[in-house]
């Protein structure tokens, strides 16, 4: 297909969609004119059908699939799940996932909170916030490319004098202070932390934006009263700011944790999950699409599902509480 064909295909799809919806609504208004009151299913029907086909049915199939072997021919019970929790490769995957979920939310939230406080009420606040927030608008693939370039490594031999110049900033910094450059994405287990940095870089903006809104919502009288009491900046932070925004803090932490559980793009783009950096969402993709073990892949997807549910339930509750204040 050339460009014109693609655009025509898109416009046709939109027109077809509009025609179907138009027809449905026409039927509804005709029915209503005849005095038929029960037209709700015309409105909600398309969504319900799509959700059944797109989410409910596939999720059920995947749960069943996870109980079968790699080829999907024989029933093997929970063997795929025991493999996830016992095979050495899969244990590394679990370890990495735990690392992502514990480190990223805390660091991103702390950075976002501090920055929100530092720039609160300062001149140029909006611009300062946009700088930190912009990574949120960049795709994970784009962010991974940006950071891969920061970590870029050029061959280095400490015994010779004229090594090629480093083009990655981080390695150049090491060279400048007299240290040997590192293969940041290859050296285990530290490479996991260098991948996590990318997620922190993205999520700090999210944390900053949400927390900044919460800080600005703290009643002015409380802040004024504390100021008149002569509190220091750190006392203000500990006894006024943090208690007042605690529910929002929890929501931000859990939201980033959910994102980390599902992280796929960053790992896939930067290392492909090699060199001991795979996480559950990436391992699902590897097992399902390249390693040809759909049973194990399905089990990993279901595991992801199970891990996410309690955090989301907790998150939604906290969100309600934060909104109720």
């Amino acid at each position, binding site marked *: *297909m050339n*460009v014109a064909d*693609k655009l025509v295909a898109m416009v046709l799809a939109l027109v077809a*969609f509009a025609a179907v*919806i138009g027809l449905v*609504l026409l039927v*509804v208004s005709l029915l209503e004119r005849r005095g038929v009151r029960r*037209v*709700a*299913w015309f*409105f*909600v029907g*398309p*969504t*319900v059908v*799509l*959700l059944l*086909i797109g989410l409910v049915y*596939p999720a059920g*199939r995947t749960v069943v699939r996870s109980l079968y072997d790699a080829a999907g021919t024989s029933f093997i019970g929970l063997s795929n799940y025991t493999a996830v929790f016992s095979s050495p490769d899969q244990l590394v995957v679990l370890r990495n996932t735990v690392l992502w979920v514990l480190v990223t939310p805390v660091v991103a939230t702390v*950075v976002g909170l501090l*920055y929100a406080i*530092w720039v609160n009420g*300062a001149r140029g606040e909006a611009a*300062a916030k946009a*700088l*930190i927030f912009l990574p949120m*608008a*960049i*795709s*994970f*693939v784009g962010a*991974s*490319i*940006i950071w891969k*370039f920061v970590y870029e490594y050029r061959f280095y031999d400490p015994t010779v004098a004229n090594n090629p110049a480093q*083009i990655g*900033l981080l390695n150049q910094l090491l060279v400048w202070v007299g240290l040997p450059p590192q293969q940041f994405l290859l050296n285990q287990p530290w490479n996991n932390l260098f991948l996590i940095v990318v997620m922190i*870089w993205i999520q*700090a903006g999210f944390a900053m934006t949400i927390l900044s809104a919460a800080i600005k919502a703290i009643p002015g*009288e409380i802040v004024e*009263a504390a*100021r*008149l*009491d*002569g509190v220091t*900046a750190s006392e203000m932070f500990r006894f006024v700011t943090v208690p007042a925004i605690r529910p929002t803090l929890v929501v931000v932490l859990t939201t980033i944790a959910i994102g980390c559980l599902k992280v*796929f*793009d960053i790992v896939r*783009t930067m290392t*492909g999950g090699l060199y001991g950096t795979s996480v559950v969402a990436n391992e699902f993709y590897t097992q399902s699409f390249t390693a040809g073990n759909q049973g194990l*892949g399905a089990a990993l*997807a*279901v595991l992801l*599902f199970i891990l*996410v*549910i309690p955090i*989301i339930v907790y*998150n939604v509750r906290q969100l309600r509480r934060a909104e109720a*204040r």
Partner: protein
Amino acid sequence: MTTTPPPPQVVGPAGAGARTGSGDVAATLRATKKRLTSPWATFAAVVLAVLWTIPTFGLLVTSFRPAADINATGWWTVLTSPNFTLENYQTVMAVDSSQSLLPFIINSVVITIPSVVLPIFLATLAAYSFAWMQFRGRDALFVAVFALQVVPIQVTLIPLLSLYADIGVAGTFWAVWISHTMFGLPLAVFLLHNFMREIPGELIEAARVDGAGHVTVFFRLMLPLLKPALAAFGIYQFLWVWNDLLVALTFAGSSNQVAPMTVALFNLTGTRGSQWFLLSAGAFVSIIVPALVFLSLQRYFVRGLLAGSVKG
């Protein structure tokens, strides 16, 4: 925050002198304000902002450097020996070239527009019926739709893939459009429903009493009032689809027939000896669109952000 703050008794060291009354308070306020936006806070904020910006800036500078320079010296050397070119962007945007990323950019556009429009429209209809129509099982159904937000798309991919193969749309735009629509619906219904409930019921009742059908109410009353909510979800879904890798990788394949920019860039990072001249320019072509959308529609975006945080 139910406790009443104690009345201020100590005015602070600045007010302990000869001045009295409101002058003390004002002076203290000035002093505290100064202390809270201290030079150290400003300094720390500037350091962090620079740290956060340098990685992007480095790749941006790189995208304007000749390919040979990129691999020979670090981007920071442009400070001492500036040498810029638009060649990388010309290569990426070329109409006829094996290295061109233009087909993928077109694909991104073709994928994104219907993937945003379809769920918005379907979800608005559904949200309207959940909010303002009576039917059996309504509340249970709404809770079910809401709950579907927790389903990670990973559990749906393989069965959907074989479903698409069965009906003959595998590897076409249709597979990607339908998938994004289905995955976007729970959040869209939830967001729009919340917003619709805030519209006063008398407004709808009045219109209904005047003999307007649901279709009329929907188009004449609801859609205009819903603009901010539609914008919030629209921007969220736009960024999600434009930046998505997993759905595209699974359903669009890698060819330049259907695959979007994210897949093209992803494949480029996998090639041996990273082609930074292509990657840097390509990355910025793909970044500029969401960045502009974000900067111009920031206020709507932040609203949709938190509500959509569990999606995916």
